[in-house]
């Protein structure tokens, strides 16, 4: 049995107004750090899958990401890294 560690980011779709991002933008501007920026926010998940092969683990993580971590109407997900341990 191997251990696969997935790191996943979920975020609102680009076309949906993201007030959290706007709050960060505004404070950055108010502190005169930068006047030209765009901030989007999201959530980070680290999930360990214990399985014999990567293909099976990938299928599981796709299902988890699509059905639990995101609502496809408003959110997207991105697997940013996969680590494999024996």
């Amino acid at each position, binding site marked *: 049995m191997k251990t696969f560690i997935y790191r996943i980011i979920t975020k*609102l779709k680009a076309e*949906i*107004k993201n*007030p*959290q991002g706007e*709050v960060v933008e505004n404070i950055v501007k108010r502190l005169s750090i930068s006047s030209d920026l765009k901030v989007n926010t999201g*959530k980070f998940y680290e999930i360990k899958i214990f399985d014999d092969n990567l293909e099976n683990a990938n299928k599981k993580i796709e299902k988890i990401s699509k059905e*639990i*971590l995101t*609502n496809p*109407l*408003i959110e997207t997900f991105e697997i940013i890294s996969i680590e494999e341990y024996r």
Partner: protein
Amino acid sequence: MKACVINFLGSNCVDETAQSLLKAGFFVDIINQNETNLERYNLIVLSGGFSWGDYVSCGRIAKFSPVISAIKEKIKQKNSFILGICNGFQILCEANILLGALLENENQKFISRDVDLIFKNKTFKLPIAHHQGRYYIDDIDKLKDCDLIKYQNNPNGSYYDIAGLYDKKNKVMGLMPHPERNYITPFKGEDGKIIFDFIKEELK
């Protein structure tokens, strides 16, 4: 007529919702999220609260409850009315029982105050208390079979001023305002009665 209020783990408006239904003339049971037999109920209510602590997103985890599958089956029988209030509305949207989704309020604040609403040419006032009540739908035409409950002064950035919607075909209503709070509390008036009377009419 018999109603049930679902007590999800984290629901916190169950008692006042049940009390409102009693006042409206329903026999009421309080059931939990694992119930799968809804045969005896005319009205099924998902009350407000923070089901599963709003983990991942409001209503996201609750949608996997056995009672949600039972509600989907019950809707097919076309002999009942489903009402989701606040977190209940969020759960119905997450479960794809109603269209759309609820996002964080535009001002990033928890909003707790009375709001003026309009539904079927009636104007009335109900309280809202939410942080994630900004209704979103990608195409308003998808709601052509729904009656809309609209804010008169949009408090949270909801698309098209939508505070709630009623899917006429399936008899499913979801709304962010709390009709139960303006029905059983004497000093708050009885505007919540408009929603409960509407439900009783639809069940006739």
